[in-house]
């Protein structure tokens, strides 16, 4: 698993993908920072974090599209699957590499928050809560991306599929508020990935939301493992 993780990290930064992701992320967060904090002159970081959520559905697919599809296409999966490592190890190594790049990209945003804290009032608890929320949200998004990368040989197809799924999840929220049935609304908002995040923005450290995000990640990683194992039987 460690070997896979190391290679994947190396690959993110020898190919442009790692840099493209981090730059795009920083550029987008900088825009939101200007809009929500500099322009309004309000030091409420919650708006800023809430706003940045939309970025991930565009960017996480970039991070995950290559992970499994490319191995299949270039047949390098043959060395992975004939080496003494488990499929779980392979999947986890790749997942953790993507999560690491995702986390690295978050670090510079803390500088902006520190800048606001210097001039205004920023709740440390709220900021920390948001970072934790973003991290767990990222876990579930990356796991979904991993799964969709494993179903196809094409990076582009994997990216488009991931983007479509993440975007649909985003619109699930809007759907929840427009359905008539109270029960259905409840179901929709229960499975809504973004809705869950509002707990963190309001400073609530919600254990159930964390469990939810971890569950989504575990389910999709499990499905990824199954799909790779199943391919050998086809």
């Amino acid at each position, binding site marked *: 698993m*460690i*070997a*896979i993780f*190391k*290679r994947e990290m*190396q*690959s993110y930064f*020898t*190919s442009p993908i790692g840099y493209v992701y981090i730059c795009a992320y920083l550029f987008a967060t900088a825009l939101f920072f200007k809009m929500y904090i500099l322009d309004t002159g309000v030091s409420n970081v919650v708006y800023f974090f809430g706003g940045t959520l939309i970025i991930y559905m565009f960017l996480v697919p970039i991070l995950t599209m290559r992970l499994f599809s490319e191995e299949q296409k*270039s*047949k*390098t*999966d*043959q*060395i*992975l*699957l*004939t*080496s*003494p*490592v*488990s499929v779980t190890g392979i999947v986890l190594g790749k997942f953790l590499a993507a999560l690491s790049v995702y986390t690295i990209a978050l670090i510079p945003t803390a500088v902006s928050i520190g800048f606001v804290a210097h001039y205004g009032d920023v709740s440390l608890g709220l900021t920390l809560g948001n970072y934790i929320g973003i991290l767990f949200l990222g876990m579930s998004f990356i796991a979904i991306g991993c799964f969709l990368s494993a179903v196809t040989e094409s990076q582009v197809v994997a990216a488009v599929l991931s983007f479509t799924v993440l975007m649909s999840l985003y619109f699930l929220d809007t759907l929840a508020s427009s359905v008539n049935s109270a029960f259905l609304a409840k179901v929709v908002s229960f499975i809504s990935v973004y809705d869950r995040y509002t707990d963190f923005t309001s400073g609530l450290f919600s254990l159930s939301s964390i469990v939810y995000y971890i569950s989504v990640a575990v389910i999709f990683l499990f499905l990824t493992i199954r799909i790779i194992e199943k391919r*050998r*039987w*086809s």
Partner: protein
Amino acid sequence: MIQVENLVKRYGDKLAVDSISFTVGEGEILGFLGPNGAGKSTTMNILTGYLSATSGAVRIGGVDILDNPIEAKQFIGFLPEQPPLYMDMTVKEYLDFVYDLKKVKFPRRPHINEICELVKIKEVYGRTIKHLSKGYKQRVGLAQALMGNPPVLILDEPTVGLDPRQIIEIRNLIKKLGKNHTVILSTHILQEVQSVCDRILIINKGQIVADGNAEQLTYKAAGNRKLVARVAGSKTEVTKLLRSIPDVLRVECLGSREAGSNDYLLEASPVVDIRKPLFRTLAASQYPMIGLKSMDMSLEDMFVKLVTEDSEGGEAL
């Protein structure tokens, strides 16, 4: 070292491997020979654990590849048909990765160095893999298979795409490795199996149609021993004389290729050698024999015969 029992692989309706069984002993170099699509690669992919068999069992060093894949895979070095190379890595980065991936126990630098010297890739060690020539890529692929010095090497068409000098180098390397490794290699180049392998398995349509070393196989397939003799003198007289030799089953005059002489095809049972009686008989009657050629079947003829026989529904060996 390798035991394969009733291996079956089905892709949908298509039977790619049809109940293959064989064993490979320690230190043996086994050649898989067969036309394209015969099931060579599929069988190799199953042996290495990349694909799962529909039914049947594979044991490597006594360990079942399905029940205990991680342990069994430690015994195997595999070079697939297309070398599994990460194009954006340098040779050094790639070999370091493989070293980590295979959890090699030997000290890192000396072990990698040794392999690089063996497959002669020292001079491209710092280069990015995508810029290497096909021959070098193939050798990096071979280096990957040798990492950790596994006792079993499975090489799928290891000399494809190499120039003639490189082919000879790689064949010599395989022979050298065969002294202390069990090697299975697949190829459709007949000279390759003849020059490298101790034993040959011919596969056609997912079935083993022949198993043995090159001499055994050609001997088996050849049927009667055939000789062509060029004898000076009268055609009718010589034919009569040749027919009189005991053990000669058939005599056929092939016509004249050299002035004053005729070529005769002689067939005899494979268990007797008719060359000495042939010489004595002709010498005694003052007919000089000016040429003698054995028409034994080459491995190539045998291969074509086996593969076509089978597809015509004929009887396989």
